[in-house]
């Protein structure tokens, strides 16, 4: 009995962590080049809504994911346009884009679904299925947890090692890192700061969009206004805790997902315990941990040196 519960729970952890992992890797790529994109939150809102709308009208969650990815890329490119190309302050633009996304999703959702005429909440009929990988999922215990998941999770199994490989073992990863550390020097050394930043914005945006669309194509069949609920900021916090390296960040994300899933699942069972730890405090945890970590070992956590700082080529 208890093994079934734990088994289900672990599957849930993996499921729930998927969108954050994608968003985390996407934002990691972008922040490594020195761009602090606070509008990851807004991007998640927009891409989840886009995926929902497409899924609703075409009945196909995978189309939804594609469109969500595209929306994510567009929004990240927009951020890049304003902050890198035009030269506006990254933080302010991030805040503005977030506001814009908040409003737009409200507006667009109700507009598209003609909220005044409706009596029922729109819901999609098809979500992504779990794909059981025949041989692997029969492996003892973890097999069922890891290999009975939707295709998006399997995508992560490839993406995470790929990200590690890219950033640590290829020259492209080195170029990206050096751009984030010192774009001036990198430029003078002949590394095209513009090109790599553009690339990272595209890729990062695609990944974040993917993460956002998972919410409405797998995790839920309705769209809620407050669906994303600050997870974009949590990702930023977890990136800091993960020292801007792919593996540690995924680890932090998993830890957070573990706690979040735990709190959802076992709240009823351990009600008495839970009254001592209200769920809001669980939600606070990643933020608190980040601040404490920054305070205590602040010196050891080093962001890319130029994170958030503006750089233009001075001819």
């Amino acid at each position, binding site marked *: 009995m208890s093994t079934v519960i734990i088994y289900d729970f672990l599957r849930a952890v993996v499921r729930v962590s998927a969108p954050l992992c994608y968003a985390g890797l996407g934002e990691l790529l972008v922040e490594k080049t020195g761009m*602090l994109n*606070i509008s990851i939150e807004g991007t998640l809102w927009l891409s989840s809504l886009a995926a929902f709308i497409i899924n609703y009208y075409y009945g196909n969650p995978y189309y939804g994911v594609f469109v969500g990815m595209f929306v994510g890329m567009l929004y990240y490119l927009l951020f890049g346009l*304003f902050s890198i190309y*035009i*030269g*506006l*302050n990254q*933080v*302010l*633009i991030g*805040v*503005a*884009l*977030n*506001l*814009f*996304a*908040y*409003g*737009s*999703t*409200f*507006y*667009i*959702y*109700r*507009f598209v679904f003609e*909220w*005044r005429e409706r009596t029922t909440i729109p819901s999609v009929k098809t979500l992504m299925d779990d794909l059981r990988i025949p041989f692997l999922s029969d492996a003892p215990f973890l097999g069922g947890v890891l290999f009975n998941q939707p295709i998006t999770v399997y995508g992560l199994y490839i993406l995470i090692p790929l990200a590690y490989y890219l950033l640590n073992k290829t020259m492209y990863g080195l170029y990206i890192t050096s751009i984030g550390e010192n774009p001036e020097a990198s430029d003078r050394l002949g590394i095209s700061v513009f090109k790599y930043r553009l690339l990272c914005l595209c890729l990062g945006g695609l990944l974040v969009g993917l993460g956002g669309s998972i919410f409405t194509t797998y995790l839920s069949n309705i769209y809620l206004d407050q669906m994303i609920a*600050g997870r974009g*900021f949590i990702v*930023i*916090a977890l990136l*800091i805790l993960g020292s801007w390296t792919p593996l540690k960040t995924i680890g932090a994300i998993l830890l957070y997902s573990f706690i979040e899933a735990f709190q959802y699942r076992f709240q009823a069972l351990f009600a008495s315990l839970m009254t001592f730890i*209200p769920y*809001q*405090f669980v*939600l*606070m945890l990643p*933020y*608190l941990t*980040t*601040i404490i970590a*920054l*305070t205590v070992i*602040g010196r050891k956590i080093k*962001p890319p040196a130029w994170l*958030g700082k503006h750089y233009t080529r001075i001819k």
Partner: protein
Amino acid sequence: MVTIKIVNVVSFFLGFSILLLFTVLLFLVAGLDPLTSIHLLFYYGFGSPNYLIEALLRSVPLLLISLGLMFTFIAGVWNIGAEGQFCIGAIVAASIALYTAWMPFPIPLILATIGGGLGGALYALVPAYLRAVRNINEVLTSLMLNYIAIYFVSYLILGPLRNPTTNFAETPPIPETAIAPRILSGYRLNYLSILAFTLIPITLIVLSKTGFGMSIRFMGQNPIAADFIAIDRKRLILRTMFISGFLAGLAAAHEVLGVVHAVRQGISSSYGYISIGIAYFGGLHPIGIFLVSLLAAGIINGTRLICFFLGIPIGLSDILFGALPIFVFISNRVVERLIVNRLIYGRGVQ
């Protein structure tokens, strides 16, 4: 005298005009007649005495928070945490009001107002301390603290401070002795609002006539040289954040004690973020900030009402407030580069 830069005024109007065009577009997409819709928007915002006073009322929290942010931004301190400071201020004001209700009026009101301000101020000191002493980026810390505050307040109003009669996510109503009284019957403007407006000239004086005002301006421009001018940077960082948090808490006290009369979920309604934009477009000047916050308040009210009457989904104001900064920033850059350098200083673009 702190000068109002022409650049900022021109670029704001330019950006705002682009925004209006953008709004026209939105209305067209929604299938509405743009001209009437915009007319209605401004009518509901400012059109009649009642609406104008409502706009003034709503402008108070925006004004207060923006004035606080003005100080920090001038000093080069990026306080993104006004939202959280507002929440903490709100709950402190409410708590004090509830617990001192037995005291005669106006003591609970005064205590709650000051308490709200102090609550916000102390909360702001956290990222301030981390920045001043440990040199930790205040954007990240204040952002994190926003969420911590929001969740904390949510916990309180669903738990210990929950209204026992309605069981909604809100505090019990603020007792009579702590409510800010209205000035004119029939209109919601209250004495705390007046207090807020008096801060406009006060902050102007602080900025232009005190050593503090001058020093923060220098520090914001060149923090390294500030050290060598005998400016105590740590002190200034702590001070500006304290002021900013205090004003955010004051804004919350105004909302809780004077308008909403309780603390509900979503009480901060993005004021903290919108005020960041307002502080900038007000040119970091009290009068500019007042005008822009009034404008913003009218637009918020206007959009709420036309959304209700015309059946447009809400969220319009957030769209506008998100888009406005971008338009204004771009036009600011354009105006600066092309015009100012050439005309005023007689130099070519460097």
